[in-house]
């Protein structure tokens, strides 16, 4: 196991994070004592094959799921001991999401979808921020459209805009290109990277695609519920070796 600690401040930390489902003989260990520090202001990819626990790790880090044991700290706040409502309010304030599918509410327009998190939180809309985000993602002339009138790539861009507009401490993206063709994928990944570079966001992306991971600054490799590598600015070869090393 190679863990590379960075000098930048951490956006999220996991210590001895364990998550099991079911009990008795049918117990599934999705995460087995994960220790992880995610640096702020960087684009990190969490990679691993299906069933490796990468989605569970993301859900726990994002406060969508509750750890069985261990601690999760996001934006300096220990998520353990928060009840459902407190977790929800925390997510509202500090975390943004982009999912693989079902990302948008079908009955709201693109613009309404982007503003939804602010509305839920009852926060005032920062017009400048909104315009900036919409501009960066190139959605100016799509704002009045319903999701069904948008292409897959456009839908994901709306989802990214929605995640960014609240200026969260960390954005989690779960297989954001899973449903897209390669051209749209490149476009979406490029936007995610720009949001880190130009808007100073912290983005954590779960993916199983090597091409997608190539857009990231750092790559965390997870296998059978444990982190097996945390690479900073890896080259293609380094990445392949880290992944292959596990599957051997």
């Amino acid at each position, binding site marked *: 196991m190679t863990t590379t600690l960075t000098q930048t401040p951490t956006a999220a930390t996991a210590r001895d994070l364990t998550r099991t489902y079911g009990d008795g003989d049918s117990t599934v260990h999705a995460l087995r004592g994960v220790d992880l520090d995610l640096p702020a202001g960087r684009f990190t990819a969490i990679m691993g094959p299906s069933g490796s626990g990468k989605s*569970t790790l993301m*859900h726990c880090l*994002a406060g*969508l*799921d*509750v750890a069985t044991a261990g601690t999760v700290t996001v934006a300096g706040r220990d998520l353990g001991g928060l009840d*459902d*409502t407190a977790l*929800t*309010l925390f*997510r*509202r*304030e500090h975390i943004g*999401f982009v*999912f693989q*599918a*079902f*990302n948008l*509410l*079908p*009955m*709201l327009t693109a613009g309404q979808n982007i503003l*939804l*998190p602010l*509305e*839920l*939180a*009852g926060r005032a809309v920062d017009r400048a921020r909104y315009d900036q985000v919409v501009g960066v993602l190139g959605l100016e002339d799509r704002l009045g459209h319903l999701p*069904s009138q948008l292409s897959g790539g456009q839908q994901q861009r709306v989802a990214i805009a*929605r995640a960014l507009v609240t200026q969260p401490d960390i954005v989690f993206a*779960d297989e954001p290109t899973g*449903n897209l063709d390669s051209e749209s994928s490149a476009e979406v990944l490029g936007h995610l990277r720009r949001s880190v570079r130009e808007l100073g966001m912290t983005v954590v992306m779960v993916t199983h695609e090597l091409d997608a991971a190539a857009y990231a600054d750092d790559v965390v490799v997870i296998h059978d519920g444990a982190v097996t590598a945390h690479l900073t600015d890896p080259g293609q070869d380094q990445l392949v070796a880290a992944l292959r090393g596990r599957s051997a």
Partner: protein
Amino acid sequence: MRGVLLASLRHHTRRYVAAGLAVVIGVAFVVVTGMLTGATREGLTADVGAPVAGVDHVVSTDDQSEAVKLVDTAQERDVPALSLGYAMEPVARDGVQLAPYANVSEVALDPALQWQDLTEGRFPDAPGQALADVNAAKSTGVRLGDVITVGSGDVATEVEVVGLVDSPAAANASLYVPWTDLERFDDTLWLPSVAWGGSPDLAREIAPGATVETSYDWTAAKQAEISQGVDVIALMALMFVFIALFVSVMVIANTFAILFAQRQRDFALLRCVGVTRRQLRRAIRLEALALGVVAAVVGIVVGAAVGAGLVVLVRHWFSDMGPAAIDPLWAGGAFVVGVVVTLLAAWLPTRAATKVAPLAALRPDTGVDVRSAAGRVRLVLAALSLVGGGLLLAVSVATTSVPVMLVGGTVFFVGVLLLGPLLVPALIRLVGRLAGRGPVRQLATGNAVRNPRRTATTAASLLVGVTLTTAVLTGLASSRTELGREMDDSYPVDGSITAVDSPLADDLVTRAGALPGAADAAALDGTVASIGKVEVPLVSAERASGVVRGRDDLVPADGVVLLPYDVIMELPRKVGDRVWDDREVTVTVDGRDRTLKAEPSSGWGRSGVVSAATLTTFDASPQPMAVWVRATDGADAEDLRGDLAALAGAAGASVDGGYSNRAWVDLQVDILTGAVVGLLGIAIVIALIGIANTLGLSVLERGRENALLRAMGLTRTQLRRAMAAEGLLLSAVATLVGTALGLFFAWIGVRVMIGSVIEDAGLSVPVLQVGGVAVVAALAGLAACVVPARRAARVTPAAGLALD
């Protein structure tokens, strides 16, 4: 395919619960109706043959004199015979009236014909003795050995109660007297048939115009006649069953439509692996059939249990009810209805579901998109129905034709239902906007209008119940207002104590006014007059204006006397004829005659009413001769009458008054209102199950979406609130439209049905009742989403995102 069918039924059992429940309620409703009418018929037809059990034949005739002659001749020649009819006469004891109109029938002196079921005492053995019905005796306080006066005027006679009997419903007389006593009441006697123990030839010889039939045939005909009456009631109950089933069809069809939409990918997958469209359709219909059969069987069991319980309960209060039993015909009919309703409801959704292309299974799962819009055909049909129905309703108002109104109303209502997918979402948006702009409310409004057709059907099922309930409540309230006005005119005085031949005590008015149930009392001065040798108190009502109801204040012009019909009947024929023909009557007080104009009327007791000035010309110092009482609203009629009778009895005066009649009419309207609302309530309950069902199934459908919202910061409470708001919006809009439509229909109904009898009949809206229905329906909609909302909120975001 059978394996697939069974597996899918097992898998989706819980989703079918609501649809099944709707069928169960509908079927149980049919079974309960069958059991109640069966028990009623059993009770009413029981012992119909008892009075003719002792004879072989029954002689029936339209000519009453023949019937009387038959019984008379039978007595002379010692032939066994019993009159099968009754007279309606007042009954009094010690000068206090016990009943204004009691049914008096014959009890034979021949023991072979004494069919009554004696509970106490003995049968009469001579004229002047009588049997009393045990229930009538209980309510009037008549005991064995009491001597009571039957009839009034010259036909009045006294009889001694020697026995108490339990009368069956079919021969429901309060009093039984021997023929010699019964024969006196030829004015009110109704005698269609005679039980005849002699030979048919003898009967034909005495009464050539009569028909002779065996007592068996007579009993059968009589039973059929009563059955027909019960059938009419059963038919009316079935109308409400039909309404409940109509609502059920909507609920079930909606359930199937939603379930099939959710299973579209399953269906497509089946098609991919080689299931033909026809096989798929058959499998789905078999699924509906299975649901229908199971629900119908459960419905019969539930109905039988509820029916048996109700019959036992009703028998407790109403002894004429028969025992509970299930008629296999009704049970079979209910079963068929349940299954057919389910299949019918599944028909259209099934067709739509099997149209799915095999490719649909292979497309990326973009979520269930069951968007549906109002088709153009539907809009045209809706417009035609609304215009056509509106025209028919206008025609019905113009011609006061009830059938045209019913057809017009139905067509118009169908138009509104067809317009639903357009109208309901628009209204929901409007109401949603009025409610405010918060994210929760916006979310609720957006969700509520996502699938216009589904929303419309859900709202329509509630709309039916609310519309009908509002219409019936308003219609009945309007009839009650109009009836009340009529009653005010027919019965201007609620209660009266009238002196017979000497003035009343001065404190009687105070005591009458202090009675519970008396709002006001007035003493009327008067004097004793004699008209054609009949002594009649003459009073002036000028001081009773606060007591008299109706448009007429009972203060006639000078020189006019208001004479009760009863008094005119007592007068010698010549004097009576003069009143009828010339409207004149000569009144004598203290030997002085004066001829007054007479106006026959009624409603205030046994006295003539004149103006104060006219009264003074007869008697310079009139004494209190009558006390008139006005009842408080809702006073107990029996109690008030009893209390007044006690006061009157002590004063040797007579008691009368219209309050019992008013209370009786009010009670009937109350019972009718209660029954109709109760029966329509079943349709509303089914509709609410439908709302809960639609919301519950939508929750399953939106699991992913709700998880997304929760991930983005929607709290559990907010999610629950959004679902509650969605349910409330649905039910509120249905209630709103239903109340408006109901009031409109009630207005038409009042124009058509009451307007034809009473001119310028107005609409009286029972604001509290209608408001109550609206509030209950809207709140019930809120209650209906408690379970779905809790279930939706319980799912953690992570689990929701993992759903497929």
